[in-house]
């Protein structure tokens, strides 16, 4: 008895509503401060009470699904009392020969396939209509469980690599064989808004003597780890010559999208260089001024700052493999290459997260069928010369009840 009540409570929608309200209340509580979403997520996954609440919701959703599937698929027990508890019921005269066959024929006429057992007739339409909801809940459950695993097991490491470079990411050695990008020869930046987008960027990664392609789009799975490109920039060797001192440096210039500046510091010499991409030409488009950048053949706008008071040099326009002098300092640039930032992620739950999203989406799409696909149940039990008929519809009960009584009305002799 108590166990039954406990199971009913655990698998009730009221518990789902209560737990969801608790989660909402928690979020509302965090809205008093900065970054409420981050704090909320952190509380749910890294605080014991938050985690208990979350797991309770998972258990509740699982129990609901099990309860629904069980109640829908178990054999229906027809009793007179059960029929009287249906949405609509009536008692009609069933005297004469083979009243069961008459009822079966009557139901068949209305599109119901019947099951006949002793003095009972039952017919159910849309018995499997629980599937869309169950599919959606299953997706959600997998997603929620995967989130926990992802939070606790995910390991991430990033490394900057240029062509021909190699390094270790999460204990695995990788070698960058090449970078392909569709950096345009002409990129027009109009006004202050930049619409610079790189859609095709890929890198050839070698690991364990195999070569794989990694992109900036979906992560690629290589030997149990996920890899993706998270950034792109220009690898620029450069040297500064002041009197007899020569300083060389391999700078990783983060100057994309055009207009962004990056600073290469030389702290020992109390100097730093500010790099920006220099436009190839400036054009007028109506009232607006546009800048055209050539991102295949680079051109930098460099400013040298030196000394404690950060004295600025004038703007130096410099291309790779060129040299220029400013403030008595000779700046030489080597050949530039592209560099990428590679992210490596260990996350055994990631595939499940993607799968769960697909399942949830499928369930959501299937849910639209619920407008037409719902359970209709009609039962009959013969008691003496009477037949007790009951009818239930999952949705649109009002019209179901009216329909049932109109059927009964049709069969009544005038």
């Amino acid at each position: 008895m108590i166990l039954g009540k406990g199971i009913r409570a655990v698998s009730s929608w009221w518990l789902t509503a209560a737990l969801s309200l608790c989660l909402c209340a928690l979020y509302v509580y965090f809205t008093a401060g900065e970054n409420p979403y981050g704090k909320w997520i952190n509380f749910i996954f890294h605080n014991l009470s938050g985690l208990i609440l979350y797991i309770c919701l998972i258990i509740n959703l699982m129990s609901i699904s099990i309860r629904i599937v069980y109640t829908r698929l178990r054999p229906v027990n027809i009793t007179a009392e059960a029929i009287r508890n249906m949405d609509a019921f009536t008692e009609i005269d069933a005297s004469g020969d083979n009243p069961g066959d008459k009822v079966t024929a009557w139901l068949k006429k209305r599109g119901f396939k019947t099951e006949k057992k002793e003095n009972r007739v039952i017919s159910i339409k849309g018995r499997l209509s629980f599937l869309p909801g169950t599919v959606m809940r299953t997706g959600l459950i997998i997603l929620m469980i995967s989130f926990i695993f992802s939070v606790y097991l995910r390991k991430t490491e990033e490394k900057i690599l240029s062509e021909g470079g190699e390094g270790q990411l999460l204990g695995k050695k990788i070698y960058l064989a090449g970078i392909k990008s569709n950096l345009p020869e002409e990129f027009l930046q109009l006004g202050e808004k930049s619409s610079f987008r790189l859609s095709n960027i890929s890198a050839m990664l070698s690991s364990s003597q195999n070569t794989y392609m990694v992109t900036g789009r979906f992560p690629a799975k290589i030997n149990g780890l996920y890899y993706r490109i998270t950034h792109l920039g220009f690898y620029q060797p450069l040297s500064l010559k002041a009197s007899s001192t020569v300083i060389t440096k391999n700078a990783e210039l983060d100057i994309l999208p055009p207009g962004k500046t990056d600073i290469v510091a030389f702290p020992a010499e109390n100097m730093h260089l500010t790099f920006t991409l220099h436009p190839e030409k400036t054009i007028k488009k109506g009232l607006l001024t546009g800048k055209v950048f050539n991102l295949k053949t680079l051109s930098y706008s460099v400013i040298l700052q030196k000394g404690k008071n950060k004295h600025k040099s004038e703007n130096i326009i410099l291309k790779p493999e060129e040299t220029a002098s400013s403030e008595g300092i000779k700046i030489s640039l080597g050949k530039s290459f592209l560099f990428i930032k590679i992210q490596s992620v260990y996350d055994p739950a990631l595939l499940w997260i993607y799968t769960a999203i697909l399942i949830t989406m499928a369930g959501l799409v299937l849910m639209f069928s619920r407008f037409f696909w719902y359970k209709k149940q009609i039962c009959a039990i013969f008691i003496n010369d009477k037949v007790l008929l009951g009818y239930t519809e999952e949705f649109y009960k009002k019209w179901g009840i009216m329909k049932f009584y109109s059927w009964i009305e049709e069969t009544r002799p005038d």
Partner: protein
Amino acid sequence: MFEPFLIAFREAFQCAVILGFILIYPKIKDRKAYYISLFAGVFAAFISGSPLGYFPNISKLLWDNKTWTFWRYISEITIFYLSIVFVILKIKPSVFAVSSGLFILGFFLFLFEARAVGFLIRDIGAMKGTLNSITVVGLAGIIAGFAPLFFLKKSLTKIHLKGALTLSSLLLLTGALKFAFGGVSGIEDNDLLITLQRGLLIFLEGAVKHMQSVLLIPEHPFISVPFAGLARFLSGDRTAVSLMVIFIMFPPLFVLISLFARPDPIVNDTQVKAQKRLKIAFFRTELIYQTIPVLFSFLILVILIHSANISMNPLYEPVPAPVREGENPDLLMIPLSDKFGDFTDGKLRKYVYYYGNKQIIFLAILKADGSVGVALDECEICRPAEWNKDARGYAQKGDHLICKYCMTPIALPTINNPGGCNPIPIPFKIEDKNIAISLTDLINTHKFAEALDKKGTHL
């Protein structure tokens, strides 16, 4: 001196209006204990709420105005959403439960207002140095606000609305009216719907970013990532507005659907056909009456959502700047950049030219392709009536112009194109960083617009 009276009167009167609806509810008028509980709740709210705001020693110990506003929102939403709970539960509560519920309802109907009024009376009194007299005036305002309810109490309880108010629709209406009346302006400036919309936007932004990072496809400043467009849409204003609308409109829709989904009375056993018809007619009349408060709540909410949207995305409409002929008497020269700003800011500009005793108002705006659009501030189709002349012309909303009469959005690239609800284009040239408009062209275009009117092509 009248300000505290008016504030106190307004808050008390708003509470009285809601109480008036509750008094009409049949089950309350039937039982004296119920409305005693209700008024006891309101009185308790007054005697506990007003000192919370009035005495600085207490108000300093408690929350600030922002936190009080937050709890007011929570109480209003709770009242509003309880309507759904009562539809689902279909419970028949005991007299004690109803009395307690009404006490709590009455308490939360006036608690926040009483505190805010107490706070304002104290504030105004302290500023003017006449605290005692201001307090008396404030109290008089509260008494005056509730007075109509006490005078009309008996009449209200006699109103027979044929079961129009159900418990759910009453809570729904109470919630909607509380949203509409809002907090006490001056110390609570935020509207619930605007706060809700902003809150949802922050939540969506956080949730979408989190999901992107979990799926290893986070947004990047320049590398295209899959579903970035979808993510931007989901974390954008429109989704937040849609969610806000769903959140606010769900209870009235739910109550309405539950009303209409009730089956008609079973009349199969009734032999007399006239009786059958009578039963069904009674049921349907009751149904229609019951939908009235729900639809009324619905209407209040639609207006509130609309006003919240307008206040979040206000229309930009500059006052027309007068222009005159320059050195060339047949040419109007409008500089693209002057002390009032630069056209590249993308904002709408309006100008007025005085032609005899007439005003020719025209607009100019920079389009996304860098070209300029110049047109009369007049639509070829819409011509509001004289009493509604403020609705003439256009205003700017984001990257669109809006016809103020029919609220049609006009895409900026289509300015200079005639037809539809677009403004009537004016020929112009760009000459030496100026928009040059020939006066002849301007006057002819204006005459053309007037002729359209005379032909009766305007609505």
